[in-house]
């Protein structure tokens, strides 16, 4: 009798925790939505989404998120272009080419890479990478999109490498034997058989990497120059959605138009990351089949 009650209690506790997680996510979204909707009572949604100027303290204030959105997109695309080829190649090396001991060393090093705090990377960006890029490309300032992209690429690499590697290792050994049995070289097998077979896992890895990059705040706030203007190229200062929220939230008056506008930016960010994770999830599921 006592045991049955005990069992019931434990069971309902677990159920409750599960439900709470869902409720929390839902509440966060609701909370964001509620505050951002308050903005659209005072400020037209079309001007928010398509406005080309983000001037929150001018008179009248302008809350166009196009420059911020473009800033986020520029930095993210830059980071992805840098880290995807690198990450996939590194995963191929670890999964297929590296001898046993090197494999272990590399895997633990990559885990260490993942544990570097983003503020440390930002610091490296300010004192070393930024000046280096400024001198190399002859820029006015090293605090630009490319600096952010490079550091974010560095941050996304561990995610991409480890998920890619899992996908490559998960390819049935029989494919490899079949290709070898036909006289294909190691490289031909890797390129034409193993990589395509692991493709959905690799796409999932890339999507999760993008999710990581687009949501990152500290690094981009420290190194991208924080200029909320529409960037002409990745070599100019720009500002991302995340950095805007983090940078301006402390200066706003609770309940003001500016305050609500930052929540609306949060909703946009939430929707973007949600979509990316959704795509990654679908790919992962397809990979498991």
């Amino acid at each position, binding site marked *: 009798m006592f045991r049955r009650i005990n069992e019931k209690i434990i069971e309902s506790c677990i159920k409750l925790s599960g439900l709470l997680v869902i409720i929390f996510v839902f509440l966060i979204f609701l909370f964001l939505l509620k505050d951002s909707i308050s903005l659209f009572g005072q400020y037209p949604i079309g001007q928010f989404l398509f406005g080309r100027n983000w001037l929150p303290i001018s008179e009248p204030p302008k809350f166009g998120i196009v420059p911020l959105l473009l800033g986020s997109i520029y930095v993210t695309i830059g980071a992805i272009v840098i880290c995807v080829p690198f990450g996939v190649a590194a995963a191929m090396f670890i999964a297929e080419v590296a001898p*046993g001991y090197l494999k272990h060393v590399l895997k633990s090093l990559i885990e260490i890479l993942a544990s570097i705090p983003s503020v440390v990377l930002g610091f490296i960006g300010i004192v070393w990478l930024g000046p280096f890029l400024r001198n190399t490309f002859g820029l006015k300032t090293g605090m630009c999109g490319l600096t952010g992209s490079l550091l974010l690429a560095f941050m996304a690499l561990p995610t991409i490498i480890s998920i890619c590697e899992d996908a490559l290792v998960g390819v049935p050994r*029989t*494919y*490899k*034997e*079949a*290709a*070898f*049995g*036909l*006289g*294909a*070289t190691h490289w*031909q097998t890797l390129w*034409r*058989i193993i990589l*395509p*077979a692991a493709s959905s896992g690799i796409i999932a890895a890339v999507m999760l990497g993008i999710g990581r990059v687009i949501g990152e705040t500290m690094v981009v706030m420290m190194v991208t120059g924080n200029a909320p203007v529409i960037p002409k190229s990745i070599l100019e200062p720009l500002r991302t959605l995340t950095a805007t929220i983090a940078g301006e939230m402390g200066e706003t008056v609770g309940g003001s138009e500016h305050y609500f506008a930052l929540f609306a930016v949060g909703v946009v960010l939430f929707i973007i990351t949600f979509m990316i994770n959704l795509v990654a999830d679908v790919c992962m599921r397809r990979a498991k089949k």
Partner: protein
Amino acid sequence: MVKQETIIKTVGLNCCYGSLCVLKDVNLEIYKNEILGIIGPANSGKTTFLRALNKLNYLNSSYSQKGDIYFSNESIKNIGENILRRKIGIIFALPQVLPVSIFDNVAYGPKVHGVTGKNTISQVVENALKKAYLWDEVKDRLNEPAVRLSGGQQQRLCIARTLAVEPDVILYDEPCSGLDPISTAKVEDAMQQLKESYTQILVTNNTKQAARVTERCVFLLMGEVIEVGETDALFTEPQDKRTDDYITGRFG
């Protein structure tokens, strides 16, 4: 029997995984265009022998080998593994189709060996599928994923894929262990037809299959060659008591 030309010869072949030696001093000659059966209970080294012939064992890092193997009078040590595996193809126990279309499965081999030209490749694919007795069943669905084929069809697809790279020797590693009797019969038919132009080595757990298909047979036990002989003779009057015990089903 007609005059026999040796195509593969093993001399004092010892194969080990770490400290475990699974083949001991194997000396065998394999003749051109014959179907050689290799029978024996599990763990007697049949598969290792087969995979030693085209260096597939080296995919296992603990593998080591002593003795020599000659292919067309040349030590396989001196033959690059890609060329060797092209000349000595292998069919695995479970059909190992690649996750691409039927056409691409067969076209893969020729492509990695540098065959180009759309027409050339589709001709090669068609010929290979015809030789493996699969063409009529798949000619209208060449672009479907190969995994949709039945087990027997997949195994014949693997044979076609091997044929497409124009080997001299085809190794079969228990090719019918996962197949039903009708599919088995189709694979065996294909083997009989291929006798004209290929040397075939069949590893099988099924002594009846060995008796049906092969011309000569090797009986392996615990890594040693116990008996070699023409299949009819080996099955009716085995010279060694252990062979007799195995083929009459007293053990194994």
